């Protein structure tokens, strides 16, 4: 059980790290939101699932699952709202910038 938990947490950490790298590298707001959706919908979910498995199948398992579902369902709403605000205030995705 512990091995499964460690595996899930490591996979989640990988996605979190990749998301952060994307946050640094990608050129504009719209692309950066992709990096954010990567970290949120995969990284956080995998790490939380790993922690829940490590906790074992008790009541705390269910409570961590509730937090996981909250993160999983609400982050799309937040990034959509932010991007819609950006879109309506006139920002448009730029072409890839040459450095």
């Amino acid at each position, binding site marked *: 059980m512990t091995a499964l938990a460690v595996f899930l947490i490591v996979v989640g950490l990988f996605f979190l790290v990749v998301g952060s790298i994307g946050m640094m590298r990608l050129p*504009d707001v719209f*692309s950066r939101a992709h990096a954010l959706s990567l970290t949120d*919908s*995969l990284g956080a979910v995998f790490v939380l699932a790993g922690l829940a498995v490590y906790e074992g199948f008790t009541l705390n398992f269910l409570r961590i699952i509730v937090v996981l579902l909250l993160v999983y369902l609400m982050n799309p709403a937040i*990034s*959509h709202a932010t991007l819609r605000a950006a879109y309506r205030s006139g920002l448009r995705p730029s072409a890839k910038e040459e450095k």
Partner: protein
Amino acid sequence: MKVFIAIALFALWLVLSASFNPAHVVLGAIVALIVAWINPIGTPYTRRFLWLRALGYAPWLFGRVVKSGLHVSRLILYPALPIKPELIQHKTKLRSEGELVVLGNSITLTPGTITVEVAPGELIVHAIDASAQQDLISGVLDEKVSRLFSAWEGDQ
């Protein structure tokens, strides 16, 4: 239906409060009943959400999310950063609010595509490169989401 909502709320209360002394349990039951009784269930002109089918939809969506997540992380880690971001208009047959919410949420949840603007019958989606759009263009997602809801009610 209201009974179902009350039971679900009560279960959530039990999980979150995690204390089983009688006062808390009774208080939770009362609150769950009141909340379920006060809130109306949809308007006549909606399509009902079928919860059992959602249980099949969620794992499918999660598989898609993992697959496209790997794709997007390969794009990010690749030294040349081969992204080709663009806004696409996605025409859809779905009209009701519930369907649009589920569809938009699924699109945003999948790495590589993000819903930017929603209107009945039309979504503006930001896609990070061409292969991220495949699910949308082939209409698989629309199909799956549409099947989550019952037929139109109160249309007669």
